[in-house]
């Protein structure tokens, strides 16, 4: 079996779990734990420690895996492990929490030191009428214009599809034509079969 691995990252409560849940073939395997920090508890009752994990069967042989990273910084050692062999990633940002912008900017910088994989940014919760516009989010994240920034509603499958397609397209554009099939896709042999 060939596994193609994508990582879904973002600050706490950005919408990673919902994103993976909206598109996955299976109910994601969630490892939730009780949030103890009172401020975090206000934001969300439970959070993910280990990982959100989803998969989409592409063919008999190929499976697309989605891995969600735990958001809090105290778990960021996990990021390196999760990013191993990933071919691209989505950075999710909560469009309703300006405080996320600085945190996400740091997260993007940190991820760039961990992996060279291409990424797109998903401005989530755009269904909220009070959501910040993409232009403002791009400016505050100081995102270069080559990096796609997509509107996202993680609870809606069509929207999640859109973001994934944009990521795949972005990965595709980074592959020179002559390299076609010369380099095998990342293989995680039978890891999840």
């Amino acid at each position, binding site marked *: 079996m060939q596994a*193609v691995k994508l990582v879904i990252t973002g600050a706490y409560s950005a919408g990673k779990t919902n994103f993976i849940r909206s598109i996955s073939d299976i109910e994601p395997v969630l490892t939730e734990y009780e949030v103890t920090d009172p401020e975090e508890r206000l934001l969300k009752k439970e959070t993910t420690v280990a990982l959100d994990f989803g998969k989409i069967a592409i063919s008999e042989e190929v499976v697309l895996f989605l891995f969600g990273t735990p958001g809090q910084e105290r778990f960021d050692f996990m990021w390196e492990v999760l990013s191993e062999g990933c071919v691209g990633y989505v950075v999710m940002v909560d469009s309703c*929490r300006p405080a996320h912008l600085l945190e996400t900017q740091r997260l993007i910088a940190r991820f760039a030191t*961990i992996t060279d994989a291409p990424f797109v940014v998903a401005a989530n919760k755009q269904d909220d009428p*009070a959501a910040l516009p993409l232009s403002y989010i791009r400016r505050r994240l100081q995102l270069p214009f080559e990096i796609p920034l997509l509107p996202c509603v993680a609870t809606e499958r069509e929207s999640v*599809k859109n973001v994934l397609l944009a990521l795949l397209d972005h990965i595709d554009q980074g592959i020179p034509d002559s390299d076609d099939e010369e380099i095998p896709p990342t293989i995680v042999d039978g890891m999840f079969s």
Partner: protein
Amino acid sequence: MALEGTLQDMSLTDLFAIFRIGVKTGVLLLKQHPERAVVYVANGSLVDAVVFNELHRRLIANGELAIIHLLAWENATFTFFSDKSALLCQRRIFRDNDTLIREALDNSSSSRRAALERSLTLDTRLAMTLLPERADPAINLDLEQWRILSQISICDTIQEICTNTRKPAEEVIPVVAGLIKFGLIEVKDEARNLPFYDNVSPYKNNQSAPEAAGKLLVRANSNRIRQPGKRLLQAIMRRVHNL
């Protein structure tokens, strides 16, 4: 849900710009203890605002004055939610955001200047700034300012300047405040003479930082991605597309 945060995450001027660009209608609540405020936004423009003191149950300002008051807030928490009832609000704000922002800026710089003047006394000791390049080279000083500036090197306190120039403190202090603002002179900081720098080693706990950075670099290299082929990628795209 709503847009939530603190003015440190996002400034009030940014919020107002976002409302205007997004043609938002709703209510912005702000809280900076012991004051609270409500701003009504209709079709992207500010219609009315109220600031009140919770502790004393007292109205501080409303309308345009409330906005100018709010523009000085720095630590407030805020929530904005869309609410069509703001359309029914009677308009008490007539000038545009930019005009109000400019006015608030003028207020804050003149109040800073006033605060500086209040802090200067006859005993205040002055010195030329250590870094003259901090001063704007385009500054033109008038005769009064030159006269006071020329005293700084020979006088220690404002009292001495007053004596030397035979001018009352009320005349000298505003000039001194202006020169401080230009960055030409500064209030002598007694604490600066203390050798406190010796006690602080900025490198104390940093021993392992370069090491960690090295590790990260190795990590990044070993994590260099092996790209999937174009054909495989296209197959994945087709599949995701048809989900």
